[in-house]
């Protein structure tokens, strides 16, 4: 086995020799740069602040309607140096893309360009109020309008709703457009068909939008069972929700045929665009018969995931659904002015059938500036290269692993931007979870595990296009090593990770007796 890195560390070095474990117990619990950190509420004090403000004048008159707070809030404060140190120490217990390879399938953990951050912080975008007179926010509205134009053109669609705040919110937006379109024609159909491999948000969204959800099975090759779908179509089917490329990492090659059948039966086609990164600049969903598709700006267009949001989920719409898109949106008139079309001006712009309003203001402006910066940096040619490199990297991993790791759909042809594996050949009770935890010890964030549900012990690996071949080769070496241990039944893997800030955490205990806030 070759040394997997150039740091001087060699695999044949024993743990004690490398000096990492096996040293003396420390009095602090710290281990060199691995630092323990108490909770804010254990170190903060109620009389300390890190912001210099005028002392309260108790004799100053107030007009608080007699509701002055009499009880303590229970907050604690830290000075600036203490605050910076506390959160910097916490940050070091996190894994991020900046630290290493993060192949979390269906999440598209690509590099977040720093130019995006810089542009979003320009005061002209960051320090502007959503209700300023529109004459004072023309540049902000132009960003929305320009991004909308890119999204429509890249997808070959007719319109776009910009206000949804995340992918799941975009799904909701698309499904409400479908509800509104059906209502407008007095159509009572209420069944939504969702493949069993779909992300959990799909059925949850359809149910939230007032539809009844029915599953559609997958074929053994990992795609939607077209015959089953067609057989189920009828006057009660409002829509299908299909992810393309799908959650098994495959392109739904019969998508157009399915879409045509759904349309012929009077239904609509919702496409979950979570995996748009595989086809951006390369395939236009509009050419496949899509009526609505959300785009996760935090996936394909690199806005940061931020430890779980904020996301942004604009929804592109077909000609049939665009009239029902929600308020507000932007429109540029011949005089070059960009208008913010809201409830009062809707009729002026011929948009009288909007299904309503999804959020208080206009959408995730801070994400729009970042996404537009990313798109302008890449251009039409660069985006096409994004899709090609993302797909190339995933296929490279698929073909570099399938000799030792079960690839249930490896024979179905090339994968798209993610490679799917299963744990059926592991021995001695070892499972996908153990491999994931073993990868943590190797310095990687694990892949998505146990999703999609259609594969036993699923491992969904999405490398993205922003990794070098050297980084991917190094990952493959580490991944193969852990998989080999799982195939051999290495008992030690069941206790992994050993080298992370925490060992395996008791999730069952956490749920049985939830402790959701600091007490004391």
């Amino acid at each position: 086995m070759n040394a997997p890195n150039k740091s001087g560390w060699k695999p044949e070095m024993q743990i004690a020799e490398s000096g990492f474990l096996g040293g003396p117990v420390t009095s602090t619990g710290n281990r060199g740069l691995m630092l323990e950190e108490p909770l804010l509420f254990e170190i903060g004090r109620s009389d300390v602040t890190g912001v210099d403000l005028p002392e309260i004048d108790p004799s100053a008159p107030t007009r608080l309607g007699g509701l002055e707070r009499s009880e303590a809030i229970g907050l604690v404060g830290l000075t600036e140096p203490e605050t910076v140190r506390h959160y910097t120490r916490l940050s070091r217990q996190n894994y991020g893309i900046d630290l290493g390879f993060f192949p979390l399938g269906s999440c598209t953990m690509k590099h977040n360009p720093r130019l995006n951050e810089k542009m979003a912080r320009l005061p002209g975008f960051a320090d502007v109020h959503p209700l300023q007179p529109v004459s004072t926010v023309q540049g902000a509205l132009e960003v929305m309008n320009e991004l909308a134009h890119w999204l429509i053109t890249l997808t070959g669609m007719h319109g776009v709703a910009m206000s949804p705040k995340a992918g799941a919110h975009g799904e909701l937006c698309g499904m409400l457009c479908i509800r509104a379109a059906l209502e407008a024609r007095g159509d009572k159909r209420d069944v939504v068909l969702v493949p069993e491999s779909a992300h959990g948000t799909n059925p949850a969204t359809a149910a939230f939008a007032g539809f009844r959800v029915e599953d559609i099975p997958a074929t053994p090759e990992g795609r939607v069972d077209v015959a089953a779908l067609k057989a189920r179509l009828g006057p009660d089917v409002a829509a299908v929700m299909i992810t393309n490329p799908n959650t098994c990492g495959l392109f739904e090659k019969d998508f157009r045929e399915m879409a045509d059948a759904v349309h012929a039966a009077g239904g609509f086609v919702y496409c979950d665009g979570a995996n748009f990164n595989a086809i951006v600049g390369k395939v236009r969903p509009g050419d496949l018969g899509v009526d609505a598709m959300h785009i996760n700006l935090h996936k394909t267009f690199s806005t940061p995931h931020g430890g779980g949001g904020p996301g942004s989920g604009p929804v592109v719409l077909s000609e049939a659904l665009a009239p029902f898109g929600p308020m507000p949106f932007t429109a540029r008139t011949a005089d070059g002015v960009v208008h913010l079309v809201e409830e009062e001006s809707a009729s002026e712009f011929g948009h009288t059938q909007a299904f309503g309003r999804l959020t208080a203001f206009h959408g995730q402006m801070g994400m729009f500036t970042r996404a537009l910066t990313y798109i302008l940096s890449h251009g039409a040619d660069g985006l096409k290269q994004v899709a090609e490199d993302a797909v190339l990297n995933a296929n490279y991993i698929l073909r570099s692993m399938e000799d030792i790791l079960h690839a249930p759909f490896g024979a179905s042809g090339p994968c798209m931007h993610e490679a799917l594996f299963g744990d059926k050949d592991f021995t001695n009770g070892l499972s996908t979870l153990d491999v994931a935890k073993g990868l943590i010890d190797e310095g990687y964030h694990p892949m998505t595990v146990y999703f999609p549900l259609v594969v036993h012990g699923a491992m969904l690996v999405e490398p993205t296009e922003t990794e070098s071949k050297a980084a991917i080769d190094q990952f493959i070496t580490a991944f193969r090593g852990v998989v080999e241990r799982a195939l051999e039944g290495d008992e030690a893997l069941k206790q992994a990770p050993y080298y992370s800030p925490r060992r395996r955490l008791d999730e069952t205990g956490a749920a049985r007796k939830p402790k959701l806030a600091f007490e004391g």
Partner: protein
Amino acid sequence: MRYLPLTDTDRQAMLAKIGASSVDDLFVDVPEVARLDGPIHGLPMHASEMAVERHMKKLAAKNLVAGEVPFFLGAGAYRHHVPASVDTIIQRGEFLTAYTPYQPEIAQGTLQMLFEFQTQVARLYGCAVANASLYDGSTACWEAVAMATRVTKRKRAVLSGALHPHYAEVVKTMAHYTGDEIADALPSITPDPELAGLIGRIDEETACVVVQYPDILGRIADLTPVAEAAHAKGALLVVVNTEPVALGAIKSPGEMGADIVVGEGQALGVGLQFGGPYLGLFAVRDPKHVRQMPGRLCGETTDAEGKRGFVLTLSTREQHIRREKATSNICTNSGLCALAFTVHMTLLGEKGLRELAAENHRLACLAADRLAKVPGVEVLNNGFFNEFTVMLPGRPAREIIRGLADRGVLGGVSLGRLYPGVAALEHALLVAVTETTTEEDIERLAEELEAAIKETAQ
């Protein structure tokens, strides 16, 4: 392309390993009808950092920056000073480029921060438990209504007329499709909130009554009677707060008997950002309601060595487990905005938040007194925190605000913008004042308002 590390040599080597002759072989499953002959037509090609920056700066320059002029807008988004260290921390790559903490062993930074955030929000709201955040205040408001219908198994929500109209619109949009009934109203233009009318609208079919505090006109009232009336009919009280700084000065909603407290957290740490991303806050007073809550929850536990650690918990409520039976379809929260809120709140602490609230209120009182002296201006509110309603009898507030903007003063939010077509509200203007407002700003607003009123024919 500066973001794409593969070289052509790499690509060839990788294709050889795969056994494909070109990258197009990997797209063989794309049907003929959807294949393109090259980059999508009609779009520009890639550009350098410098070129992109030039373009974006040109667009940014077309906006009037709030911090560069006298600025008085609020109505659900407030301009506060954000300490410099907040942005430093949220830009750390370990926070910025992490994802939802699915692997808790290497996500303790995000998880412990969320635990601290949940504790801060619960205490601020006077509640037992807060979640790890939602998209924004308006969507949190809908989630509260949806939760109340689950808890009470009733389908009717009564909205106070003084709830932010955009929040009411979001609730009505969603309820239309879920089959819930929403009873809404317009705000009454009175110096104090009219609670008697609201209480009269609560009946045995009511799942919840939704009240904003301080309300859309900036007024403050003790909501204890509303809580008692709601509870007497078996309904829940949902209190909406759009300005968390206010709760440094006034009683918490939990103290007054609110069952669910939701709000917008943008005012602390997040900044204006033209409306998003913002930060939805969600808390419940009674821990027995925890399992009906939407969104992610972080809980304390221990690891295999017995050390304290944190995990996402109670996920059996959520979409990835429950699918169509989930409490909400929400997947992500507003993690980085929650971090910004928590760092700002940590810098403030109990002492700083109280001082910040006092300073906001002091300046707002100054502004109200000064504007009341302008001929043709009447201050509506008896009570307020940092935002109040100004009446301009006989003058269209919206035109006056546009006129002020032309003269470099962002003078407030006209109610005509929020309630288009409602004649009774056309003469009303919301004025928000924070610690960032100077006494010179207030004087300038008074002078410009006086001039504008004189110029506007009655």
